């Protein structure tokens, strides 16, 4: 499986111009300061932001699928891409129970209620929250909401899993525990996973490869060690040599 993103798009005077090739079975971290275009890149892949020029497509099982190619007037909506995006603020549906949240993607894709509920229950069990199935989402703690959001994203069996600052909204105490759980889920995930973070320690622990973005462009990519060995800019040098940041800042 291979996801190719060649995207040139301008939103409110910010221009994102990136060229990325992402392989299945590995996790790539998009690392960069606020406003570097990390979240924008995820929105492009998910289909929430159509590109101006370039091509976004996926090749799986020898079949290539184009998702967005303006020159050929091809644009596949977010609902018809095999992508799941876990938002930084989770965006659980407040009008539904935890179980209904996790089952939403399956129902939306036409699964019958009974099947959707049993698949959703299985996912809730996997993230250890089956006992909260009937709860309303506003009763959940930050760590619980994060795991529900992860279960909801994975339940649709996506080819591409996008995680936008998955740990940023958690307090420092729960973060370490949730991070190791997340690492386990990412290792087990066969598709392409892309993680947005501004924390090099998080990138090192969760991702196989790192892409550094600055000002809407890719400035460096490779493994964390390669980047640390030869940082290509002052920002990257400060980032990899400094102490791991614990900030919970929100991107874009």
């Amino acid at each position, binding site marked *: 499986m291979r996801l190719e993103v060649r995207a040139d798009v301008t939103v409110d005077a910010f221009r994102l111009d990136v060229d990325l090739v992402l392989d299945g079975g590995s996790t790539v971290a998009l690392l960069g300061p606020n406003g570097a275009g990390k979240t924008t890149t995820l929105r492009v892949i998910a289909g929430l932001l159509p590109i101006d020029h370039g091509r976004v497509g996926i090749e799986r099982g020898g079949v290539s699928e184009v998702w967005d190619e303006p020159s050929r007037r091809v644009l596949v909506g*977010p*609902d018809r891409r095999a992508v799941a995006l876990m*938002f*930084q603020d989770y965006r*659980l549906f407040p009008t539904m129970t935890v179980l209904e949240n996790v089952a939403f993607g399956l129902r*939306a894709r036409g699964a019958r209620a009974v099947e959707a509920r049993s698949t959703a229950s299985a996912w809730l069990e996997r993230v250890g929250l089956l006992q909260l199935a009937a709860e309303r*989402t506003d009763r959940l703690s930050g760590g619980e909401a994060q795991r529900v959001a992860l279960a909801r994203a994975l339940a649709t069996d996506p080819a591409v899993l996008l995680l936008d600052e998955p740990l940023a*909204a958690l307090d420092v105490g729960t973060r370490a525990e949730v991070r190791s759980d997340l690492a386990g889920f990412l290792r087990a995930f066969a598709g392409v996973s892309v993680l947005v973070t501004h924390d090099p320690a998080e990138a090192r622990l969760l991702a196989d490869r790192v892409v550094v973005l600055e000002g809407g462009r890719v400035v460096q990519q490779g493994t964390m060690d390669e980047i640390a060995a030869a940082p290509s800019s002052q920002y990257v040098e400060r980032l990899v040599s400094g102490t791991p940041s614990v900030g919970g800042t929100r991107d874009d």
Partner: protein
Amino acid sequence: MLAGIAVLFFALPLLGLLWRVPWSRTWDVLSSRSVGRALQLSITTSLIAALVSMVFGVPLAWMLARVGFPGRSVVRALSTLSMVLPAVVGGVALFFSFGRRGLFGQYLDEWFGIRLPFTSAGVVVAQVFVAMPFLVLSVESSIRQLDVRLEEAARTLGGSRWYVFWRITLPAIRPGVVAGAVLAWSRALGEFGATITFAGNLPGRTQTMPLATYLALESDPEAALVLSVVLIAVSFAVLLGLRDRWLGQARPAGAAPQGPAAVTT
């Protein structure tokens, strides 16, 4: 103090009305056949008008709130014009467009055999014409306040536009839709000018409660008082019953905080 004067201003006419009601005759008036028919007609047509306003008004409100197109403000002004227009003018306009000799009415009759003037359907048309803008404005403002984040999340989970509207958007704007439907319904129930101008005043077919009340004022003022009280009672009961249940919780559900995630900045 000023607020007190405002309350008195609304309460005193009510008091004056109730003071003069001939309670001993109430039952006689109410059980008369013409009143029963007017009341029944009023309730049926106003409910249908509210329903029709909802079916067409919610999509219109969604379009005004979400779809950017040239001339949107003109379309909005056009579709809410009848709120500020005297209802009689609306009735005249309807008469010359959908009346039997109207610009479009003659074809409605010729091609489909549909005649609106002097029919109960014409009453509904007149009511929808004046009532729908209330629903459109109410729903449009709740769609505007709605946060698109949840709809985006639902889209990435595989929801088509229609599915997302049905499962996410509509539940979130429900208080606005209910409030708008109640406003539209009460406006339709009280509709007078457009109805009498366009649909006429045929007992049993187009003579609604407001028309019956106005006519009774000339022939039998005591009956007019009784009819007024009935209209007031019906409207008051509905407004009172719905306000706490639905309008009280009119918060934009899409903006509901979700755990600590919503407070990080």
